């Protein structure tokens, strides 16, 4: 650790986490077919050199399934986190710039959604939309924006009091102009970090809602499906079905977290020169 200063360590963290995630995605998508192939001649194999994660009761290669599952999770995480973030950005800025009434309505909605446990709301939305990929993505997207929206709103309110915005307003610039030209650039770093930090949440919630049976359909190699199927076979000693997918899920989530934290430290003026 002495060889690198903090900034370099952050860069390494970012590099490794991005590399890991990209590798998982690429391998996962190369293994789309392998993840679904069933072969009863190789069912219930413990980890060995040809199937390092073992196989399940349908003779599916757990390594391929895990990678495909994770890449699907990452995809769902990215899509729903991106949608969440856009919703958060628009509402956050709107709350802060459109005046008192809009602000109180939006704040109320934020509080309302934050008041209901994520997973509950997520299950409701997913089931109402007929489950599947669509249900999960929309469900995650609609439940994860409030925390980020609140952050942005607070930031915008603070910004509004700063002299250069006040002056800009006095000069007769429109609200839209101010929001676009002055506020957005200021908010972008925080927004990006918030976006990245939404991924792990989204992924974990996607897998839990699928695990509970309200998400993706069972023939798909989603990580939640893998884990819930593994539960049935744990009692017969097939530990590999849950262990490796579980560990990889945690690693993926940690990688996103490292990425987000590193980005934050690099972009935050307070820590960037340490």
């Amino acid at each position: 650790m002495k060889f690198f200063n903090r900034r370099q360590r952050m860069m390494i963290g970012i590099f490794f986490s991005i590399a890991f995630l990209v590798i998982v995605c690429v391998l996962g998508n190369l293994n789309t077919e392998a993840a679904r192939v069933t072969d009863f001649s190789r069912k219930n194999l413990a980890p060995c050199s040809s199937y390092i994660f073992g196989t399940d009761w349908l003779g599916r290669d757990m390594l391929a399934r895990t990678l495909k599952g994770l890449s699907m999770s990452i995809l769902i995480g990215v899509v729903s986190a991106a949608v969440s973030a856009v919703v958060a950005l628009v509402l956050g800025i709107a709350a802060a710039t459109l005046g008192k009434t809009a602000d109180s309505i939006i704040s109320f909605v934020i509080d309302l959604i934050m008041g209901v446990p994520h997973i509950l709301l997520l299950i409701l939305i997913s089931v109402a939309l007929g489950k599947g990929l669509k249900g999960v993505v929309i469900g995650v997207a609609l439940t994860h924006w409030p925390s980020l929206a609140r952050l942005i709103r607070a930031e915008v309110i603070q910004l509004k009091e700063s002299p250069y915005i006040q002056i800009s307003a006095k000069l007769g610039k429109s609200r839209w102009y101010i929001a676009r030209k002055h506020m957005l650039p200021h908010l972008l770093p925080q927004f990006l970090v918030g976006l990245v930090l939404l991924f792990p949440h989204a992924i974990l919630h996607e897998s839990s809602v699928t695990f509970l049976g309200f998400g993706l359909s069972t023939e798909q190699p989603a990580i939640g499906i893998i884990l819930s199927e593994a539960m049935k076979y744990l009692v017969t000693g097939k530990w590999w079905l849950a262990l490796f997918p579980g560990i990889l899920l945690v690693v993926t989530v940690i990688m996103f977290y490292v990425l987000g934290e590193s980005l934050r430290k690099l972009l935050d003026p307070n820590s960037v020169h340490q």
Partner: protein
Amino acid sequence: MKKKIIAFLCAFSLAAGVFAGCGQNQEQTAQTSGVSDEKVQEGLQESTKDEVIVTMPTTSEPESGFDPAYGWGAGEHVHEPLIQSTLTVTNQDLEIGLDLATDYHVSEDGLTWTVTIRDDVKFTDGEPLTAEDVAFTYNNCKEKSSVNDFTMLEEAVATDNTTVEFRMTRPYSIWPYTMAVVGIVPEHAYDENYGQNPIGSGRYIMKQWDRGQQVIFEANPEYYGEAPKMKKVTVLFMEEDAALAAAMSGQVDVAHTAASYSDQQIEGYELFRVDTVDNRGFNLPCVEPQEKDGITYGNAFTADVRVRRAINIGIDRQEMIDNVLNGYGTAAYSVCDKMPWYNEDCEVAYDPEEAVRILEEAGWKEGSDGIREKDGVKAEFTLMFSTGDSVRQALAEDTANQLRELGICVTTEGVGWDVAYDRAQSDPLMWGWGAHTPMELYNIYHTLSDSGIGMAGYSPYANEAVDQYMDQALAAGSLEESYELWKKAQWDGTTGITQEGDIPWIWLCNVDHLYFVRDGLQIADQKIHPHGHGWSIINNVDQWNWE
């Protein structure tokens, strides 16, 4: 400083108190657990005489209680109602025997069934069971039952104390099979809470029901038949993995289990298998796609009868049983294998070359991707299975693998039952059927003129000859006569639902019901179990005994 010392002392004494408390508690729990261990030991020794603990899937717990009007015994999964007695019973060979009834006969036109009943039977509350109670039970079922079909019954009338007349809306020769599953309830003690506190005249009395956990039955000391050998039967509701764990820790005497756990060795337990007609198979919609009321009926690929024939002989059922069921199953060729009304012409031999030949002859030629096609239609379909059912999923996957060899592309998809019925009208679905009544054939193959597109209810199919045989079977004068007609409905030499006929459903296997049974427990001979891995096993629990 002084304050700090005092605070420290206070904290110390508090902590000491807490730890002391812990120590005591631990000792106490150790003591009590010692006691309970002894109790358990005693209990085990006692249970070697006349008690038995049986596990069942959580889905077997009757949601509306033990009321025949809401499906107890006479529901989706038929079984003997234990608490109540029935007019008739199904014998070991699944023909009809008598229980409460002493005699029954049907009028020439098939519209009136007259049943005389025993006059010495009492409900467990001491009141005698009369023909009035029988009539009340059936009229009540007709009025309320949503799980079983009673539309053929006009009304039941008690003509005297021991005679009851069933007036029918249409001839229904297999009525004795309905009488074998409807438990007679007491009119004087029946209200909306009957399901929670059932009173009957059967072999057992329901003592206790802890919803979501267990039901305890005790033998009825006043039972009019042979006294039950098992005095107490406890049924625990749990998933298969929990049942396995319960057996491993020696807490239960009979644990239901699945083929995927069949390789487990549990000390002191033996694997017990029961033949079933609990079949799995998939439907093949028999018409070209058409839409009505937002539902698509039919499938362009499976509408070709030669495709259906090729699929039927192109599937190696034994390979499937070995792989998916670890060998615990038998090949199925119809919805009613081994039943008295089963037509053995349904059986086919696995012949992949012939299957390929049929497809070639029908014009389904292999394309560059190895998938056959004809006139722009690809040889492909989606095979659905109910989400979370690992056996059906495995069967679907294996079907897909095997049909791929014939050049047919099958995609599997897990679906919930909320959408499965509608989608099965156009895409094959992995079903599970099997009941102790020929009505099952009717439900699957007979057309329903007033629903959907006027074809069979679960998958589009229509054949007038098949319909006619089944109508005649229902109108037959005797059960024996009706068996022959049910067989003809399957294959009469020229048409039917077999390989040479229209083959609208492909049947794959009958899934053995598996149990881990504690050594020393003698389970009485089982009838072929119907669909449902639950109550059937304890149909004759009164005759079990410990060695």
